[in-house]
Protein backbone atom coordinates (compact mmCIF):
# COMPACT_ATOMS: atom_id res chain seq x y z
CA UNK A 1 0.00 0.00 0.00
CA UNK A 2 1.08 3.55 -0.49
CA UNK A 3 2.18 5.48 2.54
CA UNK A 4 0.07 8.49 3.40
CA UNK A 5 2.71 10.98 2.38
CA UNK A 6 2.33 9.85 -1.22
CA UNK A 7 -1.33 10.79 -1.46
CA UNK A 8 -3.26 14.01 -1.84
CA UNK A 9 -5.52 14.74 1.10
CA UNK A 10 -8.13 16.97 -0.53
CA UNK A 11 -11.59 16.23 0.68
CA UNK A 12 -14.01 17.27 -2.05
CA UNK A 13 -11.87 17.01 -5.16
CA UNK A 14 -11.82 13.18 -5.35
CA UNK A 15 -15.59 13.09 -4.88
CA UNK A 16 -15.94 15.57 -7.72
CA UNK A 17 -13.65 13.42 -9.88
CA UNK A 18 -15.52 10.12 -9.49
CA UNK A 19 -19.03 11.63 -9.53
CA UNK A 20 -19.60 11.78 -13.32
CA UNK A 21 -18.70 8.14 -13.92
CA UNK A 22 -20.41 6.94 -10.75
CA UNK A 23 -23.58 8.79 -11.69
CA UNK A 24 -23.69 7.05 -15.08
CA UNK A 25 -22.88 3.67 -13.54
CA UNK A 26 -25.57 3.98 -10.87
CA UNK A 27 -28.14 5.19 -13.38
CA UNK A 28 -27.42 2.77 -16.22
CA UNK A 29 -26.02 -0.22 -14.35
CA UNK A 30 -27.15 -0.50 -10.74
CA UNK A 31 -30.68 0.84 -11.20
CA UNK A 32 -31.43 -1.49 -14.15
CA UNK A 33 -29.93 -4.49 -12.34
CA UNK A 34 -31.94 -3.69 -9.23
CA UNK A 35 -35.08 -3.06 -11.25
CA UNK A 36 -34.83 -6.42 -13.01
CA UNK A 37 -34.89 -8.18 -9.64
CA UNK A 38 -37.55 -5.82 -8.26
CA UNK A 39 -39.89 -6.28 -11.23
CA UNK A 40 -39.56 -10.04 -11.08
CA UNK A 41 -41.72 -9.82 -7.93
CA UNK A 42 -44.35 -7.53 -9.48
CA UNK A 43 -46.85 -7.76 -12.27
CA UNK A 44 -46.05 -4.75 -14.46
CA UNK A 45 -48.41 -3.13 -16.93
CA UNK A 46 -46.66 -2.60 -20.28
CA UNK A 47 -47.52 1.09 -20.73
CA UNK A 48 -46.84 2.36 -17.23
CA UNK A 49 -49.70 2.46 -14.80
CA UNK A 50 -50.16 0.22 -11.83
CA UNK A 51 -47.95 -2.59 -10.67
CA UNK A 52 -49.02 -5.28 -8.30
CA UNK A 53 -46.91 -7.34 -5.91
CA UNK A 54 -47.28 -11.00 -6.83
CA UNK A 55 -44.51 -12.65 -4.81
CA UNK A 56 -42.97 -15.58 -6.61
CA UNK A 57 -45.74 -15.89 -9.20
CA UNK A 58 -43.53 -14.62 -12.03
CA UNK A 59 -40.87 -17.18 -11.22
CA UNK A 60 -43.50 -19.93 -11.08
CA UNK A 61 -44.84 -18.84 -14.46
CA UNK A 62 -41.41 -18.63 -16.11
CA UNK A 63 -40.07 -21.84 -14.60
CA UNK A 64 -43.13 -23.84 -15.64
CA UNK A 65 -42.81 -22.61 -19.24
CA UNK A 66 -41.17 -25.33 -21.38
CA UNK A 67 -39.98 -22.65 -23.84
CA UNK A 68 -37.85 -21.12 -21.07
CA UNK A 69 -36.14 -24.42 -20.34
CA UNK A 70 -35.58 -25.11 -24.03
CA UNK A 71 -34.02 -21.67 -24.52
CA UNK A 72 -31.92 -22.21 -21.40
CA UNK A 73 -30.67 -25.59 -22.62
CA UNK A 74 -29.83 -24.08 -26.03
CA UNK A 75 -27.96 -21.27 -24.29
CA UNK A 76 -25.83 -23.81 -22.42
CA UNK A 77 -25.19 -25.92 -25.53
CA UNK A 78 -24.20 -22.77 -27.44
CA UNK A 79 -22.04 -21.57 -24.55
CA UNK A 80 -20.13 -24.85 -24.28
CA UNK A 81 -19.70 -25.52 -28.00
CA UNK A 82 -19.11 -21.99 -29.27
CA UNK A 83 -16.86 -20.78 -26.48
CA UNK A 84 -14.67 -23.88 -26.31
CA UNK A 85 -14.12 -23.54 -30.06
CA UNK A 86 -13.59 -19.81 -29.72
CA UNK A 87 -10.78 -20.46 -27.24
CA UNK A 88 -9.28 -23.62 -28.75
CA UNK A 89 -8.91 -22.22 -32.26
CA UNK A 90 -7.12 -19.00 -31.20
CA UNK A 91 -4.95 -21.12 -28.89
CA UNK A 92 -3.73 -23.28 -31.79
CA UNK A 93 -3.26 -20.17 -33.94
CA UNK A 94 -1.36 -18.38 -31.16
CA UNK A 95 1.00 -21.33 -30.64
CA UNK A 96 1.64 -21.35 -34.40
CA UNK A 97 2.10 -17.58 -34.60
CA UNK A 98 4.53 -17.65 -31.68
CA UNK A 99 7.05 -19.51 -33.83
CA UNK A 100 9.44 -17.48 -35.92
CA UNK A 101 8.17 -18.36 -39.36
CA UNK A 102 7.42 -16.20 -42.36
CA UNK A 103 3.64 -16.25 -42.00
CA UNK A 104 3.53 -15.29 -38.34
CA UNK A 105 3.81 -11.52 -38.87
CA UNK A 106 1.01 -11.22 -41.47
CA UNK A 107 -1.10 -13.63 -39.42
CA UNK A 108 -0.76 -11.49 -36.31
CA UNK A 109 -2.11 -8.60 -38.34
CA UNK A 110 -4.94 -10.38 -40.14
CA UNK A 111 -6.27 -12.29 -37.14
CA UNK A 112 -7.16 -9.02 -35.38
CA UNK A 113 -9.36 -7.72 -38.22
CA UNK A 114 -12.66 -9.23 -37.03
CA UNK A 115 -12.51 -6.84 -34.05
CA UNK A 116 -13.53 -4.10 -36.47
CA UNK A 117 -16.49 -5.97 -37.95
CA UNK A 118 -19.67 -5.75 -35.90
CA UNK A 119 -21.38 -8.98 -34.90
CA UNK A 120 -24.45 -7.87 -36.81
CA UNK A 121 -22.40 -7.06 -39.95
CA UNK A 122 -20.71 -10.44 -40.02
CA UNK A 123 -24.12 -11.96 -39.27
CA UNK A 124 -25.51 -10.37 -42.44
CA UNK A 125 -22.47 -11.63 -44.38
CA UNK A 126 -22.69 -15.19 -43.01
CA UNK A 127 -26.43 -15.26 -43.68
CA UNK A 128 -25.55 -14.61 -47.34
CA UNK A 129 -22.56 -16.96 -47.59
CA UNK A 130 -24.56 -19.82 -46.09
CA UNK A 131 -27.75 -18.97 -47.95
CA UNK A 132 -28.94 -22.32 -49.34
CA UNK A 133 -29.91 -20.91 -52.76
CA UNK A 134 -27.09 -18.56 -53.74
CA UNK A 135 -24.39 -19.17 -51.11
CA UNK A 136 -21.37 -21.41 -50.66
CA UNK A 137 -23.50 -24.52 -50.26
CA UNK A 138 -25.73 -23.87 -53.28
CA UNK A 139 -23.81 -26.16 -55.70
CA UNK A 140 -23.84 -28.92 -53.07
CA UNK A 141 -27.56 -28.39 -52.60
CA UNK A 142 -28.13 -28.87 -56.31
CA UNK A 143 -26.40 -32.24 -56.22
CA UNK A 144 -27.97 -33.40 -52.98
CA UNK A 145 -31.18 -31.44 -52.46
CA UNK A 146 -31.81 -30.54 -48.84
CA UNK A 147 -28.34 -31.34 -47.53
CA UNK A 148 -27.87 -27.76 -46.33
CA UNK A 149 -31.09 -26.05 -45.25
CA UNK A 150 -30.58 -23.61 -42.36
CA UNK A 151 -34.08 -22.28 -43.01
CA UNK A 152 -35.61 -25.66 -42.13
CA UNK A 153 -32.98 -27.65 -40.29
CA UNK A 154 -32.24 -26.27 -36.80
CA UNK A 155 -28.82 -27.93 -36.62
CA UNK A 156 -27.63 -26.20 -39.79
CA UNK A 157 -28.78 -22.84 -38.43
CA UNK A 158 -27.06 -23.52 -35.11
CA UNK A 159 -23.81 -24.45 -36.88
CA UNK A 160 -23.87 -21.17 -38.82
CA UNK A 161 -24.24 -19.28 -35.54
CA UNK A 162 -21.29 -21.11 -33.98
CA UNK A 163 -19.08 -20.45 -37.02
CA UNK A 164 -19.94 -16.74 -37.01
CA UNK A 165 -19.36 -16.50 -33.26
CA UNK A 166 -15.94 -18.16 -33.48
CA UNK A 167 -15.04 -15.85 -36.37
CA UNK A 168 -15.68 -12.71 -34.35
CA UNK A 169 -14.19 -14.14 -31.15
CA UNK A 170 -10.74 -14.83 -32.63
CA UNK A 171 -9.04 -11.40 -32.18
CA UNK A 172 -9.41 -10.94 -28.43
CA UNK A 173 -8.55 -14.52 -27.47
CA UNK A 174 -5.71 -14.68 -29.98
CA UNK A 175 -4.10 -11.46 -28.73
CA UNK A 176 -4.38 -12.45 -25.06
CA UNK A 177 -3.04 -15.97 -25.58
CA UNK A 178 -0.22 -14.77 -27.84
CA UNK A 179 0.80 -12.18 -25.24
CA UNK A 180 0.86 -14.98 -22.66
CA UNK A 181 3.03 -17.17 -24.88
CA UNK A 182 5.44 -14.35 -25.62
CA UNK A 183 5.96 -13.61 -21.95
CA UNK A 184 7.31 -17.13 -21.33
CA UNK A 185 11.04 -16.68 -20.70
CA UNK A 186 13.28 -18.10 -23.38
CA UNK A 187 15.35 -19.97 -20.80
CA UNK A 188 12.37 -22.25 -20.14
CA UNK A 189 12.51 -23.54 -23.71
CA UNK A 190 16.27 -23.94 -23.53
CA UNK A 191 16.04 -25.89 -20.28
CA UNK A 192 13.35 -28.16 -21.75
CA UNK A 193 15.41 -28.64 -24.91
CA UNK A 194 18.44 -29.61 -22.80
CA UNK A 195 16.28 -32.24 -21.14
CA UNK A 196 15.52 -33.65 -24.56
CA UNK A 197 12.04 -32.23 -25.14
CA UNK A 198 11.43 -31.53 -28.82
CA UNK A 199 9.32 -28.64 -30.11
CA UNK A 200 6.07 -30.68 -30.11
CA UNK A 201 6.69 -31.93 -26.60
CA UNK A 202 7.42 -28.41 -25.35
CA UNK A 203 3.94 -27.28 -26.40
CA UNK A 204 2.42 -29.70 -23.94
CA UNK A 205 4.93 -29.44 -21.11
CA UNK A 206 6.06 -25.81 -21.21
CA UNK A 207 3.70 -23.61 -23.16
CA UNK A 208 0.29 -24.95 -22.10
CA UNK A 209 0.98 -25.06 -18.35
CA UNK A 210 2.53 -21.60 -18.40
CA UNK A 211 -0.34 -19.85 -20.18
CA UNK A 212 -3.00 -21.38 -17.92
CA UNK A 213 -3.83 -17.96 -16.39
CA UNK A 214 -4.55 -16.48 -19.84
CA UNK A 215 -6.41 -19.59 -20.91
CA UNK A 216 -8.55 -19.45 -17.80
CA UNK A 217 -9.25 -15.76 -18.27
CA UNK A 218 -10.26 -16.08 -21.92
CA UNK A 219 -12.58 -18.96 -21.00
CA UNK A 220 -14.29 -16.96 -18.22
CA UNK A 221 -14.80 -13.95 -20.49
CA UNK A 222 -15.81 -16.11 -23.43
CA UNK A 223 -18.59 -17.81 -21.45
CA UNK A 224 -20.26 -14.47 -20.67
CA UNK A 225 -19.52 -13.21 -24.15
CA UNK A 226 -21.13 -16.21 -25.86
CA UNK A 227 -24.29 -15.80 -23.77
CA UNK A 228 -24.75 -12.12 -24.60
CA UNK A 229 -23.12 -11.35 -27.94
CA UNK A 230 -25.05 -14.17 -29.60
CA UNK A 231 -27.94 -11.71 -29.87
CA UNK A 232 -26.59 -9.79 -32.87
CA UNK A 233 -25.84 -13.03 -34.72
CA UNK A 234 -29.23 -14.60 -34.00
CA UNK A 235 -31.11 -11.47 -34.99
CA UNK A 236 -29.28 -11.18 -38.31
CA UNK A 237 -28.74 -14.82 -39.30
CA UNK A 238 -31.64 -16.91 -38.08
CA UNK A 239 -34.14 -14.64 -36.33
CA UNK A 240 -34.42 -17.30 -33.64
CA UNK A 241 -35.70 -19.91 -36.08
CA UNK A 242 -36.34 -22.28 -37.65
CA UNK A 243 -39.06 -23.20 -35.22
CA UNK A 244 -37.29 -21.55 -32.30
CA UNK A 245 -34.29 -23.86 -32.62
CA UNK A 246 -31.82 -20.96 -32.29
CA UNK A 247 -33.74 -18.92 -29.72
CA UNK A 248 -31.22 -18.50 -26.93
CA UNK A 249 -32.27 -16.91 -23.64
CA UNK A 250 -30.88 -13.47 -24.50
CA UNK A 251 -32.99 -13.46 -27.68
CA UNK A 252 -36.09 -14.77 -25.91
CA UNK A 253 -35.82 -11.98 -23.33
CA UNK A 254 -35.71 -9.40 -26.12
CA UNK A 255 -38.68 -10.95 -27.93
CA UNK A 256 -40.76 -11.28 -24.74
CA UNK A 257 -39.96 -7.77 -23.55
CA UNK A 258 -39.95 -5.68 -26.71
CA UNK A 259 -42.34 -7.59 -28.94
CA UNK A 260 -44.61 -9.34 -26.41
CA UNK A 261 -44.63 -6.43 -23.89
CA UNK A 262 -44.31 -8.98 -21.09
CA UNK A 263 -42.13 -6.82 -18.84
CA UNK A 264 -42.50 -8.98 -15.75
CA UNK A 265 -41.67 -12.18 -17.61
CA UNK A 266 -38.70 -10.58 -19.37
CA UNK A 267 -37.41 -9.08 -16.10
CA UNK A 268 -37.75 -12.40 -14.31
CA UNK A 269 -35.78 -14.15 -17.05
CA UNK A 270 -33.21 -11.33 -16.95
CA UNK A 271 -32.84 -11.83 -13.20
CA UNK A 272 -32.40 -15.59 -13.61
CA UNK A 273 -29.84 -15.07 -16.41
CA UNK A 274 -27.90 -12.57 -14.28
CA UNK A 275 -27.75 -14.98 -11.35
CA UNK A 276 -26.60 -17.69 -13.75
CA UNK A 277 -23.82 -15.52 -15.21
CA UNK A 278 -22.61 -14.43 -11.78
CA UNK A 279 -22.74 -17.98 -10.40
CA UNK A 280 -20.83 -19.25 -13.42
CA UNK A 281 -18.04 -16.73 -12.89
CA UNK A 282 -17.95 -17.47 -9.16
CA UNK A 283 -17.73 -21.24 -9.79
CA UNK A 284 -14.94 -20.80 -12.28
CA UNK A 285 -12.94 -18.66 -9.91
CA UNK A 286 -13.56 -20.98 -6.97
CA UNK A 287 -12.87 -24.30 -8.65
CA UNK A 288 -10.65 -23.72 -11.64
CA UNK A 289 -8.92 -20.53 -10.57
CA UNK A 290 -7.53 -22.04 -7.41
CA UNK A 291 -5.79 -24.91 -9.16
CA UNK A 292 -3.87 -22.68 -11.50
CA UNK A 293 -0.47 -21.55 -10.42
CA UNK A 294 -0.05 -17.89 -11.27
CA UNK A 295 3.58 -17.79 -10.23
CA UNK A 296 6.18 -17.56 -12.93
Amino acid at each position, binding site marked *: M*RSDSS*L*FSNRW*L*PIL*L*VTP*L*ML*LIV*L*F*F*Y*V*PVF*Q*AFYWSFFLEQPFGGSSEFVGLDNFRRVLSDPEFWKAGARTIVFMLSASSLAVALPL*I*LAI*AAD*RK*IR*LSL*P*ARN*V*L*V*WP*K*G*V*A*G*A*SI*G*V*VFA*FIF*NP*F*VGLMAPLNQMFPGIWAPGIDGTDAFLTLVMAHV*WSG*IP*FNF*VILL*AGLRSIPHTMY*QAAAMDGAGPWRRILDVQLPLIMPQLFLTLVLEFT*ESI*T*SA*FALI*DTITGGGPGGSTTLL*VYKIYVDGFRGYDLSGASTQ*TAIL*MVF*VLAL*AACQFAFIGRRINYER
Partner: protein
Amino acid sequence: MIENARSINIAAGLILAIGMIYIIGPLYLTLSTASQSFEDMLRNGLAWYPGDQLLVNMGKIFTETRIPIQMFNSLIVASSNAFATCVLSLLSAYAIVYFRIRWAGVIFALILATIMLPLDIRVITTYQVASNIFSPLNAVLDVTGLNLLIASAFGAPVHLELSVLNTHFGLVAPLVAHGTGTFLFRQFFLTLPKDLFKAARMDGAGPIRFLFDILLPLSRASFAALFVLTFLSGWTQYLWPLVGASTPDMQTAVVGLARLVPDADGQVPDFPMIMAGAVLVSLVPLSMIALLQRYLVQGLVLSEK
Protein backbone atom coordinates in the same frame (compact mmCIF):
# COMPACT_ATOMS: atom_id res chain seq x y z
CA MET B 1 19.06 -22.62 -30.38
CA ILE B 2 19.81 -24.96 -33.23
CA GLU B 3 17.52 -27.91 -33.69
CA ASN B 4 15.46 -29.51 -36.35
CA ALA B 5 12.01 -27.94 -36.08
CA ARG B 6 11.01 -28.46 -39.68
CA SER B 7 7.90 -30.56 -39.07
CA ILE B 8 6.45 -28.17 -36.52
CA ASN B 9 7.24 -25.11 -38.62
CA ILE B 10 5.47 -26.58 -41.62
CA ALA B 11 2.47 -27.46 -39.46
CA ALA B 12 2.46 -23.97 -37.93
CA GLY B 13 2.59 -22.38 -41.36
CA LEU B 14 -0.33 -24.48 -42.55
CA ILE B 15 -2.38 -23.64 -39.47
CA LEU B 16 -1.76 -19.92 -39.88
CA ALA B 17 -2.65 -20.09 -43.57
CA ILE B 18 -5.94 -21.82 -42.75
CA GLY B 19 -6.66 -19.31 -40.00
CA MET B 20 -6.06 -16.39 -42.33
CA ILE B 21 -8.29 -17.91 -45.00
CA TYR B 22 -11.04 -18.34 -42.40
CA ILE B 23 -10.79 -14.64 -41.50
CA ILE B 24 -10.22 -13.20 -44.98
CA GLY B 25 -12.58 -15.58 -46.83
CA PRO B 26 -15.88 -14.02 -45.71
CA LEU B 27 -14.43 -10.51 -46.12
CA TYR B 28 -13.27 -11.31 -49.66
CA LEU B 29 -16.63 -12.85 -50.60
CA THR B 30 -18.33 -9.73 -49.24
CA LEU B 31 -16.21 -7.53 -51.45
CA SER B 32 -16.49 -9.72 -54.55
CA THR B 33 -20.27 -10.02 -54.19
CA ALA B 34 -20.56 -6.28 -53.62
CA SER B 35 -19.03 -5.77 -57.05
CA GLN B 36 -21.57 -7.93 -58.93
CA SER B 37 -24.88 -6.91 -60.36
CA PHE B 38 -28.01 -8.40 -58.81
CA GLU B 39 -28.80 -10.36 -62.00
CA ASP B 40 -25.31 -11.88 -62.13
CA MET B 41 -25.59 -12.99 -58.55
CA LEU B 42 -28.97 -14.62 -59.18
CA ARG B 43 -27.55 -16.46 -62.19
CA ASN B 44 -24.17 -17.56 -60.83
CA GLY B 45 -24.62 -17.54 -57.05
CA LEU B 46 -21.55 -16.74 -54.98
CA ALA B 47 -19.04 -14.60 -56.87
CA TRP B 48 -15.44 -15.82 -56.66
CA TYR B 49 -14.06 -13.04 -58.84
CA PRO B 50 -14.64 -9.34 -58.38
CA GLY B 51 -16.92 -7.70 -60.94
CA ASP B 52 -17.24 -4.09 -61.99
CA GLN B 53 -20.42 -3.01 -60.21
CA LEU B 54 -18.92 -2.00 -56.85
CA LEU B 55 -19.46 1.73 -57.36
CA VAL B 56 -22.98 1.18 -58.70
CA ASN B 57 -23.93 -0.84 -55.61
CA MET B 58 -22.33 1.68 -53.29
CA GLY B 59 -24.19 4.40 -55.13
CA LYS B 60 -27.43 2.57 -54.41
CA ILE B 61 -26.51 2.52 -50.71
CA PHE B 62 -25.97 6.28 -50.81
CA THR B 63 -29.12 7.14 -52.72
CA GLU B 64 -31.64 4.48 -51.65
CA THR B 65 -30.85 3.85 -47.98
CA ARG B 66 -30.27 5.82 -44.80
CA ILE B 67 -26.83 4.28 -44.29
CA PRO B 68 -24.94 7.58 -44.91
CA ILE B 69 -26.71 9.45 -42.11
CA GLN B 70 -26.57 6.34 -39.96
CA MET B 71 -22.81 6.19 -40.46
CA PHE B 72 -22.67 9.76 -39.23
CA ASN B 73 -24.61 8.61 -36.13
CA SER B 74 -22.20 5.73 -35.65
CA LEU B 75 -19.30 8.14 -35.87
CA ILE B 76 -20.84 10.38 -33.19
CA VAL B 77 -21.72 7.46 -30.94
CA ALA B 78 -18.36 5.73 -31.31
CA SER B 79 -16.20 8.81 -30.87
CA SER B 80 -18.17 10.27 -27.97
CA ASN B 81 -18.23 6.85 -26.31
CA ALA B 82 -14.45 6.67 -26.70
CA PHE B 83 -13.85 10.24 -25.56
CA ALA B 84 -16.21 10.14 -22.58
CA THR B 85 -14.94 6.75 -21.42
CA CYS B 86 -11.32 7.91 -21.60
CA VAL B 87 -11.89 11.17 -19.73
CA LEU B 88 -14.26 9.88 -17.03
CA SER B 89 -12.19 6.74 -16.44
CA LEU B 90 -9.00 8.76 -16.17
CA LEU B 91 -10.58 11.08 -13.60
CA SER B 92 -12.05 8.30 -11.45
CA ALA B 93 -8.87 6.20 -11.57
CA TYR B 94 -6.92 9.33 -10.58
CA ALA B 95 -9.21 9.87 -7.57
CA ILE B 96 -8.98 6.22 -6.52
CA VAL B 97 -5.19 5.95 -6.74
CA TYR B 98 -3.85 9.37 -5.73
CA PHE B 99 -6.17 10.58 -2.99
CA ARG B 100 -6.40 9.59 0.63
CA ILE B 101 -10.01 8.46 0.72
CA ARG B 102 -11.38 5.75 2.93
CA TRP B 103 -14.00 4.46 0.49
CA ALA B 104 -11.63 4.10 -2.47
CA GLY B 105 -11.82 0.30 -2.33
CA VAL B 106 -15.61 0.29 -2.27
CA ILE B 107 -15.87 2.70 -5.20
CA PHE B 108 -13.41 0.68 -7.22
CA ALA B 109 -15.32 -2.56 -6.53
CA LEU B 110 -18.59 -0.88 -7.50
CA ILE B 111 -17.06 0.31 -10.79
CA LEU B 112 -15.38 -3.02 -11.51
CA ALA B 113 -18.58 -5.02 -10.95
CA THR B 114 -20.03 -3.52 -14.15
CA ILE B 115 -17.75 -5.79 -16.17
CA MET B 116 -19.62 -8.88 -14.95
CA LEU B 117 -23.05 -8.10 -16.43
CA PRO B 118 -22.90 -6.76 -19.99
CA LEU B 119 -25.46 -4.30 -21.34
CA ASP B 120 -27.06 -6.96 -23.56
CA ILE B 121 -28.28 -8.89 -20.50
CA ARG B 122 -29.87 -5.93 -18.72
CA VAL B 123 -31.30 -4.30 -21.84
CA ILE B 124 -34.98 -4.51 -20.78
CA THR B 125 -34.63 -2.46 -17.61
CA THR B 126 -31.93 -0.18 -19.02
CA TYR B 127 -34.49 0.74 -21.67
CA GLN B 128 -37.00 1.58 -18.93
CA VAL B 129 -34.49 3.79 -17.13
CA ALA B 130 -33.55 5.53 -20.38
CA SER B 131 -37.21 6.20 -21.12
CA ASN B 132 -37.28 8.35 -17.98
CA ILE B 133 -33.90 8.97 -16.39
CA PHE B 134 -35.59 10.64 -13.40
CA SER B 135 -37.56 7.50 -12.53
CA PRO B 136 -35.02 6.41 -9.86
CA LEU B 137 -35.24 9.88 -8.28
CA ASN B 138 -39.05 9.77 -8.34
CA ALA B 139 -38.99 6.33 -6.75
CA VAL B 140 -36.63 7.47 -4.01
CA LEU B 141 -38.85 10.48 -3.26
CA ASP B 142 -41.92 8.23 -3.10
CA VAL B 143 -40.37 5.55 -0.93
CA THR B 144 -38.78 7.89 1.58
CA GLY B 145 -42.06 9.77 2.01
CA LEU B 146 -40.44 13.03 0.96
CA ASN B 147 -43.02 13.34 -1.78
CA LEU B 148 -45.86 13.29 0.78
CA LEU B 149 -44.13 16.14 2.54
CA ILE B 150 -43.65 18.05 -0.69
CA ALA B 151 -47.23 17.34 -1.73
CA SER B 152 -48.59 18.73 1.52
CA ALA B 153 -46.36 21.79 1.31
CA PHE B 154 -46.68 22.65 -2.39
CA GLY B 155 -49.88 20.90 -3.36
CA ALA B 156 -48.40 18.31 -5.72
CA PRO B 157 -45.72 15.60 -5.48
CA VAL B 158 -42.54 15.92 -7.51
CA HIS B 159 -42.63 13.83 -10.64
CA LEU B 160 -39.95 14.54 -13.22
CA GLU B 161 -39.77 13.02 -16.66
CA LEU B 162 -37.02 13.08 -19.22
CA SER B 163 -36.53 10.45 -21.87
CA VAL B 164 -33.10 10.05 -23.44
CA LEU B 165 -34.33 7.45 -25.90
CA ASN B 166 -33.76 8.39 -29.52
CA THR B 167 -31.00 10.87 -28.64
CA HIS B 168 -27.27 10.57 -29.15
CA PHE B 169 -26.76 10.98 -25.41
CA GLY B 170 -29.08 8.03 -24.75
CA LEU B 171 -27.19 5.88 -27.24
CA VAL B 172 -23.84 6.68 -25.65
CA ALA B 173 -24.43 6.94 -21.88
CA PRO B 174 -25.17 3.26 -21.10
CA LEU B 175 -22.02 2.31 -23.02
CA VAL B 176 -19.89 4.64 -20.90
CA ALA B 177 -21.24 3.10 -17.66
CA HIS B 178 -18.53 0.46 -17.80
CA GLY B 179 -15.50 -0.28 -15.65
CA THR B 180 -12.80 -1.39 -18.10
CA GLY B 181 -11.35 2.09 -18.56
CA THR B 182 -11.04 2.82 -14.86
CA PHE B 183 -9.43 -0.58 -14.37
CA LEU B 184 -6.96 0.06 -17.18
CA PHE B 185 -5.88 3.48 -15.91
CA ARG B 186 -5.65 2.27 -12.29
CA GLN B 187 -3.33 -0.56 -13.34
CA PHE B 188 -1.22 1.92 -15.26
CA PHE B 189 -1.02 4.43 -12.37
CA LEU B 190 0.06 1.70 -9.96
CA THR B 191 3.06 0.90 -12.18
CA LEU B 192 4.34 4.49 -12.01
CA PRO B 193 7.14 5.10 -9.48
CA LYS B 194 6.07 6.75 -6.22
CA ASP B 195 8.99 9.12 -6.40
CA LEU B 196 7.33 10.81 -9.34
CA PHE B 197 4.54 11.89 -7.04
CA LYS B 198 6.89 12.93 -4.26
CA ALA B 199 9.05 14.98 -6.62
CA ALA B 200 5.99 16.72 -8.01
CA ARG B 201 4.75 17.53 -4.50
CA MET B 202 8.19 18.82 -3.56
CA ASP B 203 8.05 21.19 -6.52
CA GLY B 204 4.74 22.42 -5.23
CA ALA B 205 2.39 20.80 -7.72
CA GLY B 206 -1.22 20.58 -6.58
CA PRO B 207 -3.66 17.84 -7.62
CA ILE B 208 -4.80 19.62 -10.79
CA ARG B 209 -1.33 20.51 -11.93
CA PHE B 210 -0.06 16.99 -11.21
CA LEU B 211 -2.88 15.55 -13.31
CA PHE B 212 -2.37 17.81 -16.31
CA ASP B 213 1.38 18.27 -16.36
CA ILE B 214 2.63 14.86 -15.25
CA LEU B 215 0.00 12.14 -15.35
CA LEU B 216 -1.67 13.09 -18.61
CA PRO B 217 1.49 13.17 -20.75
CA LEU B 218 2.58 9.84 -19.27
CA SER B 219 -0.80 8.22 -19.95
CA ARG B 220 -0.82 9.06 -23.63
CA ALA B 221 -0.29 5.45 -24.78
CA SER B 222 -2.95 4.04 -22.41
CA PHE B 223 -5.28 6.81 -23.51
CA ALA B 224 -4.80 5.90 -27.17
CA ALA B 225 -5.23 2.18 -26.48
CA LEU B 226 -8.46 2.72 -24.57
CA PHE B 227 -9.70 5.17 -27.19
CA VAL B 228 -9.28 2.68 -30.04
CA LEU B 229 -10.87 -0.10 -27.99
CA THR B 230 -13.94 1.88 -26.95
CA PHE B 231 -14.34 3.46 -30.38
CA LEU B 232 -14.54 0.01 -31.97
CA SER B 233 -16.91 -1.25 -29.30
CA GLY B 234 -19.15 1.80 -29.78
CA TRP B 235 -19.21 1.38 -33.55
CA THR B 236 -20.03 -2.35 -33.41
CA GLN B 237 -22.81 -2.18 -30.78
CA TYR B 238 -26.06 -3.73 -31.95
CA LEU B 239 -28.72 -4.49 -29.34
CA TRP B 240 -28.64 -1.15 -27.51
CA PRO B 241 -28.82 1.09 -30.61
CA LEU B 242 -31.52 -1.24 -31.94
CA VAL B 243 -33.84 -0.52 -29.00
CA GLY B 244 -32.47 2.88 -27.93
CA ALA B 245 -33.22 4.57 -31.25
CA SER B 246 -36.60 4.18 -32.87
CA THR B 247 -36.38 6.35 -36.00
CA PRO B 248 -34.15 5.38 -38.95
CA ASP B 249 -32.40 8.74 -38.81
CA MET B 250 -31.19 8.11 -35.26
CA GLN B 251 -30.14 4.50 -35.71
CA THR B 252 -26.52 3.52 -36.13
CA ALA B 253 -25.08 2.09 -39.35
CA VAL B 254 -24.80 -1.48 -38.07
CA VAL B 255 -28.52 -1.52 -37.18
CA GLY B 256 -29.35 0.07 -40.52
CA LEU B 257 -27.34 -2.58 -42.34
CA ALA B 258 -29.18 -5.40 -40.56
CA ARG B 259 -32.49 -3.72 -41.49
CA LEU B 260 -31.60 -3.85 -45.21
CA VAL B 261 -32.28 -7.57 -45.19
CA PRO B 262 -36.05 -8.02 -45.58
CA ASP B 263 -37.72 -10.01 -42.82
CA ALA B 264 -39.92 -12.01 -45.16
CA ASP B 265 -38.50 -15.24 -46.53
CA GLY B 266 -39.04 -16.41 -50.07
CA GLN B 267 -37.39 -14.07 -52.53
CA VAL B 268 -33.64 -13.58 -52.65
CA PRO B 269 -32.80 -10.06 -51.40
CA ASP B 270 -30.47 -7.72 -53.28
CA PHE B 271 -27.34 -9.24 -51.73
CA PRO B 272 -24.81 -7.27 -53.82
CA MET B 273 -26.24 -4.00 -52.50
CA ILE B 274 -26.36 -5.34 -48.93
CA MET B 275 -22.76 -6.51 -49.19
CA ALA B 276 -21.75 -3.09 -50.52
CA GLY B 277 -23.41 -1.70 -47.37
CA ALA B 278 -21.46 -4.17 -45.22
CA VAL B 279 -18.23 -2.98 -46.87
CA LEU B 280 -19.08 0.67 -46.23
CA VAL B 281 -20.13 0.09 -42.62
CA SER B 282 -16.97 -1.87 -41.82
CA LEU B 283 -14.64 0.52 -43.65
CA VAL B 284 -14.12 2.99 -40.79
CA PRO B 285 -13.37 0.47 -38.01
CA LEU B 286 -11.27 -1.75 -40.27
CA SER B 287 -9.09 1.12 -41.47
CA MET B 288 -8.76 2.19 -37.85
CA ILE B 289 -7.48 -1.29 -37.00
CA ALA B 290 -5.07 -1.19 -39.92
CA LEU B 291 -3.65 2.19 -38.87
CA LEU B 292 -3.72 1.87 -35.09
CA GLN B 293 -3.17 -1.84 -34.66
CA ARG B 294 -0.38 -1.34 -32.14
CA TYR B 295 -2.73 0.53 -29.79
CA LEU B 296 -5.56 -1.95 -30.26
CA VAL B 297 -3.38 -4.93 -29.33
CA GLN B 298 -1.99 -3.00 -26.40
CA GLY B 299 -5.51 -2.12 -25.26
CA LEU B 300 -6.70 -5.71 -25.45
CA VAL B 301 -3.72 -6.93 -23.45
CA LEU B 302 -3.99 -4.14 -20.85
CA SER B 303 -7.71 -4.66 -20.31
CA GLU B 304 -7.19 -8.26 -19.19
CA LYS B 305 -4.44 -7.73 -16.61
